Structures are given as structure tokens and as C-alpha cells.
């Protein structure tokens, strides 16, 4: 019975959100806030794998997001959009309903491969140097896209709206809401399964003492590589969703500011805590909306919050603890085993 609680709550939450969107109980503005919230959850929990669990310092999350965004939208527009790009469409519009998750995964895969290319040279380095390498890599990605005329260069790329409208022609529901929700669930399940396995506990071991990990039979190079690829792959999926929710992307959407946002969410929530990273993504998205009237002023408030947080609670609100560690009652409700017992 207890095993069913999580899936049951998840499905009813999805039903509630979809119903509310269809009936206009929540207006278009709040629908898009909800979708960006989901995208932010994916960004923050995936970055948390590297910056929190593995204790490295990656600052180029937006770069991987850009790879995912461009690969999935260019693929989608080339295959499905009527008239124009690369002489398509090659596939009928109704297939988008089925192909969309595959397009997202293709973007994620491309981002993961990019992550591999970034991680390989950074193996010999740690800490500050990885930060520099990831910043450099995200700049390379951004300027590469700016200089590829076929995908619009600095002007940006659009046409994703045709894909989303092809989906609504099949069945008129808020598809993007559904996909974002599904991707968030997918991300949380994948990350949770990863970090709770012995394989993934190796990531914590690497953070706490890499030499001891290597000596105690943990293949530390593999652990670092897999974790970095997983993190960047999930960022790629977030990027794909971002592209389709907005309907328009340009290289300027994936600057260091975007990477910083992801880092703020991780450090706000607590490093190494999935629920912390997810909840702080929710809080951060709402905060950004509340502070929207202040315009650029919000970039004074948010860094200020970060400074205060580092002063008074450097481990973040949750700090390597999960929601279930803070409310033991919740753990009992979910029927989860206590870690290590």
C-alpha cells in the first residue's frame, strides 16, 4: 500500500495541474511559471549531482542546456515542421506526440556527449580548474552556435511552436505541461536511483576522500565521468524543454547568468540534497516572479541572499539532508528504509 503513495500523489498532481490548465483555472502566465519551475527543478537537481554530491565546481550548466535545446529543436523542426528548414517535413505531424520524448532524449544524449568531451581533459584537475574549464566550454558552445548560420546564429532559432501546435491538433491538451512534468519525474527518479545505489554512493566517497575511494576499489575516473555525463545530459533535457516552452531560443539565453541561476538554486537548497535542490528551484522560480517588477534590481537581491546564506548557513537550507531526514514522519509515511539501517 505504502509503495503506491508516491506514484499516486504524482499522478494526481499531474491530473490536477492538467485539469487546472485546461479549464483555465490557472491562467497562461501561471502555467508558464509552473513549466519554468519544472525546468529549473531539472537544472538544479542535475547540477547538484556534480556540485553537491561529487563536490566539484561546474559553472557551465547553461552550455549543456544550450546543446540540448538546439539539438532537440533543430531535429524537431527539420523532421516535422512544414515548409522550410532542410526541405522537410519528412514525417507527418501527428507523430510528434510520440516522437517528442525521443527528441528530448536526443538533446540530452548530445549534451551528455558534450559533457564527456569537457570532462575528459578536466580529469587531471579539480576544484577551481574544473570551474574554469566548464566556463570556457560553455563559452565555446555559445560562440559556436552564434557562428552557425544554418541554425540562425546570433539571431536565434524558432519554429518550435509548429511542433507544439501539431501536438495539440492530435489532442487538445497542454502538452508542454505534460512533458515538463514527465521530465521532472524522470529526472528525480533517475537521480534518486543513481545516488542511492552503491554505484552512486561512490560519488559521495569521491567527494569525501578521493584517494581513499581509489584505494578502496572505486573506479574514481569512471564515477566522475558517469556523474558528469548524467548531469550534463539532464541539463540537455531541461534545455530541450526550455526551447519548446518558449518557442524561440538564441545563444543569448544560455549565458553565464543562466549557469549562475542553476548554481544559486543548488547552493540555496543545500548541496547533495535532491529534495533541497528541487524545493529551492521552486522557491527560486517564485522569487524571480515576485521580484520581476524590480527588473535588473533582482540581480542585486538574489546575490545578496546568497552572500547572507554563505555567511549564516553555508551548507544551504538542507545541507546534505533530504526532506525525509528532516521530517522522519514523512519517511514512515512513504515506507522508506532509513539509510544505512
Amino acid at each position, binding site marked *: 500500500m505504502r509503495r503506491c503513495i508516491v506514484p499516486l500523489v504524482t499522478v494526481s498532481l499531474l491530473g490536477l495541474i492538467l485539469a487546472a490548465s485546461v479549464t483555465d483555472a490557472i491562467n497562461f502566465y501561471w502555467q508558464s511559471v509552473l513549466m519554468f519551475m519544472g525546468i529549473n527543478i531539472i537544472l538544479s537537481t542535475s547540477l547538484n549531482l556534480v556540485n553537491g554530491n561529487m563536490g566539484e565546481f561546474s559553472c557551465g550548466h547553461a552550455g549543456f542546456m544550450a546543446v540540448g535545446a538546439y539539438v532537440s529543436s533543430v531535429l524537431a523542426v527539420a523532421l516535422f515542421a512544414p515548409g522550410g528548414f532542410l526541405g522537410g517535413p519528412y514525417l507527418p505531424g501527428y507523430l510528434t506526440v510520440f516522437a517528442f520524448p525521443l527528441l528530448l532524449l536526443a538533446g540530452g544524449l548530445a549534451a551528455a556527449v558534450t559533457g564527456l568531451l569537457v570532462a575528459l581533459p578536466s580529469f587531471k584537475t579539480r576544484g577551481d580548474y574544473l570551474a574554469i574549464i566548464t566556463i570556457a566550454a560553455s563559452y565555446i558552445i555559445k560562440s559556436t552556435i552564434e557562428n552557425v548560420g544554418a541554425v540562425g546564429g546570433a539571431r536565434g532559432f524558432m519554429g518550435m511552436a509548429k511542433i507544439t501546435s501539431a501536438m495539440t491538433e492530435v489532442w487538445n491538451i497542454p502538452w508542454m505541461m505534460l512533458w515538463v512534468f514527465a521530465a521532472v519525474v524522470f529526472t528525480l527518479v*533517475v537521480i534518486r*536511483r*543513481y545516488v542511492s*545505489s*552503491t*554505484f*552512486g*554512493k*561512490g560519488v*559521495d*566517497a569521491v567527494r*569525501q*576522500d578521493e*584517494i*581513499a*575511494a*581509489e*584505494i*578502496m*576499489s*572505486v*573506479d*574514481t*575516473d569512471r564515477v566522475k565521468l*558517469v556523474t558528469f555525463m548524467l548531469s550534463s545530459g539532464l541539463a540537455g533535457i531541461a534545455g530541450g524543454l526550455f526551447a519548446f516552452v518558449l518557442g524561440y531560443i538564441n545563444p543569448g539565453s544560455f549565458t553565464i547568468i543562466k549557469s549562475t541561476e542553476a548554481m544559486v538554486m543548488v547552493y540555496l537548497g543545500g548541496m547533495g540534497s535532491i529534495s533541497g535542490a528541487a524545493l529551492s528551484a521552486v522557491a527560486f522560480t517564485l522569487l524571480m516572479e515576485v521580484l520581476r517588477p524590480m527588473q535588473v534590481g533582482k540581480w542585486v537581491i538574489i546575490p545578496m541572499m546568497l552572500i547572507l546564506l554563505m555567511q549564516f548557513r553555508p551548507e544551504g537550507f538542507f545541507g*546534505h539532508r533530504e526532506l525525509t531526514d528532516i521530517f522522519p514522519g514523512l519517511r514512515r509515511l512513504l515506507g522508506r528504509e*532509513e*539509510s*544505512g*539501517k
Partner: protein
Amino acid sequence: MALLDVVNLTRDFGGLRAVCEFETRFEGRELLGLIGPNGAGKTTVFNVVSGFYAPSAGEILFQGKSTAGLKPHKVTALGIARTFQNIRLWFDLSVLDNIRVSQYYHLEYGLWDCFLRTERYKRREAAIAANAHEILEALNLAEYAGELPKNLPYGLQRRVEIARALSVKPKLLMLDEPAAGLSSADVDDLIKLIGWIHKEFDLAIWMIEHQMDVVMKLCTRIQVIDFGQTIADGTPLEIQANPDVIKAYLGDDAI
């Protein structure tokens, strides 16, 4: 075939020869000691044998095969486990998780098994957890399974580190100053524990130790090194009477 054969091992750090033409040989399940003054190169020998440093010259044969070029985790997987002079547990992972992670060498499942929670994953994780509980039970650590090592007293941390090394199912266990920092009562327990592990787990033990009490009671043969050179090799009684050893420890004036 010898279990471990260290032939002519030399290790340089820049212009410093930390270990010079060191030799040792484990025929079967011996319990050998490696002693010497501070900075003699004992831990360097351990670091080279465990694959952390490559030897500058010489060879290490484990069960007849050279370990040259193997990364430390591969060397460990062959059956060489070690503890550290200053305890290097993962202090923020539970005691049980410490023992689980160090069984990484026989995970035997891939990333997809982990994501999809396949039968293979469940079977392997169950086996790993069962192994871990068995080792904790054997070393009287079962009640601390859920604790974080950072919250345990020093003596117990030592014990957990030995348990973690045993979880690799080693054929050779290298202990780097296991008695360092222990109270005399804890040292007595440790001597019993090491003797018991040696018999119970049927493995060879190689121990660096400063406390003569421990080495003299446990080891069948002791090697002494000083400034990287092996200066004596023999039974505890021989070593105790060896003038070179006394000189290395106490200086020329002592004799």
C-alpha cells in the same frame, strides 16, 4: 608461487630516494612487520605496493603477476587492501555505506541496471549489503551500522577502517600504523583483533607499526628500514638484539 614478491623496489621523489632496492616476499599467510624511524620510507613502500605510486625501478608480483601500470582500484580488486596512517574513512557516509562502497570492485551491474532496478541490480545490492552486515557483525560493529564515522570514538574508527579493508576480501591486508593514537587498553584489543583476523579470514597481514609491543607480539618476521635502506630482517628476537636497529632508533651514543 609466492603471494607477494617485491623485487628490488626503488622509488625516487625528484632527487630523493625514498625507498632503495627494497625486497620482501610473502610465501603464504604470514604476518610480517615493517618498522623504522619516522621518514624511513615505510608508507612509501605501502603506497607503491597499493599502486598509488609507480615504482621508479623494480617489480611487484602479486600471485605471480606484475601489478605494474595498474590503477590502485585494480590492484585492490586483485586482493590487496590497506588502511591508512591517519584514518581515511568517508566520515559523512554511514558505517554501513562505507563498507558497501568499498565493494565497488564486484558491483557486477551497470548504469542501466541501476536506473531500471533490474533483477541483477537487486540481487547484487542485496549480496553487497549482506556481505557488509556480515563483516560488521564479525567485527562487533553491527550496532554502529547506521552511525556516521565522524561521530564514533577514535578506536572504533580504526576498527571500521579495518572492516572496510576486509570488505575487499583481501588476500593481503596492509595495516599502516593501526595502533597510532590508541590508548593502551585499545592497543591490547587491537592486538587480539589482528591476531583473530589473521586466523579467521585466512589472509596475509603486513603491518607498519611504531609500538614495539604490537609488532613483537604479532609478527613472525620483521623488516627494518632506515632512509629507504633495509637494515635488518629477522624474527622479533633477532631484531630486538640487532645493533643496527638500535642505532637507527636511538642514535650512535646509545651503544
